[in-house]
């Protein structure tokens, strides 16, 4: 998460992020909020997918697809920087 470009807060287990340069707000539901917190700590996509499997009981392939879509959306909004592994 680009801490210098994005401010974020958790409210009732959901996350609202503010892209400062565009005054654009992004909001997540509870499960995506967990992914956001892990991203902010520098977790990998694999770690995010594993957390979805453990926490929400979905299958590994679905979890990987959900994480990829989430990361792609955030990247397109310019609020995260994806590092090559």
């Amino acid at each position, binding site marked *: 998460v680009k801490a210098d470009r994005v*401010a974020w*807060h*958790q*409210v*009732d*287990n*959901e*996350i*609202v992020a*503010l892209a*400062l*340069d565009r*005054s654009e*707000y992004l*909001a*997540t*539901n509870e499960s995506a909020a967990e992914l956001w917190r892990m991203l902010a700590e520098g977790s990998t996509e694999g770690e995010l997918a594993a957390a979805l499997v453990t926490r929400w009981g979905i299958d590994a392939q679905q979890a990987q697809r959900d994480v990829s879509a989430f990361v792609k959306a955030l990247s397109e909004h310019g609020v995260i920087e994806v590092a090559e592994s």
Partner: protein
Amino acid sequence: MPDREPVRERRGYVVHGLRIRSEVPLDAPDGAEGLCDIEVTWGERRPIPDETAPGVLLSYLELPVGSSSLVRDDQGFTLRVHNLCEFEIDSALRAVRVHLAPDADHELGQLLIGGTLALVLVLRGNCVLHASAVESEGHVLAFVGGSGMGKSTVAALCCAAGARLVTDDVLRVESDHAGGWCFGGSTEVRLRQNSAELVNDFHDSARRSTVDARVAVRPARGEVGRHRISAIVAPLCVHGADELKVMRLHGANALLELARAPRTIGWIDEEPLRRDFGVLASLAEQVPIFRAQLPWGPPFQPDLADALLDAIRSE
């Protein structure tokens, strides 16, 4: 040249938690003379350029009366409403000097000083919402929303039903571990012509026409100081609806509703955005936030304000 020059009589006010001494008449409760936080004076008339002043551009937006820009330089800040007037603010944020264009009506300065003080509050590190607030039976309710969303009309409806005015249009808010807080502000509620039927609910001496073609009413008012906020309501005014609906917002929805209603907009400087976001996130956790769908008028349902206040209190 304008046919009337402003009267340079300095008066004391207490508004938004600040003591202000001002030559420009403020829509605010009178305050004690003596030490003040901000001094407002009339400056000389001079041409106001249609461009930003030299310096670092902090905010820019288009207003109905023209472009507006805020610039910081070594001396302080310049808030310029292009071609019309500008407000010189010292770097300590304790003095505001109002300059009008040679042909500008001085009432324009009076009209814009409220928004300018909101801007000064933000520059001083305060969070300011576009909101009105009333006090009813010991509970302070704030109505948030952008221009034309109905917050002033709802506040006037509540005051006509016996509530006391806390502020209209500008609401300074804070949040701490004990709750959400706001400060008393203006003494009048400014209504658009389409809500003007409400003025009949106020005494003749408590209403007047404004320079921007609105009607201002002066309800009974609450204390000028700091108030605990009981609830924040975002009105959703629906013509043709016949039923009041109140919905409690939680989580991201609650915070986003507040984030839609900053009193000062157009920021290029990111620091006020970041700071306000933190205050609003705390408020969203400390204070119940509601969206209220209101059957809208005119004509307004006679029991609408009571029904709204009862619905919020019962939550």
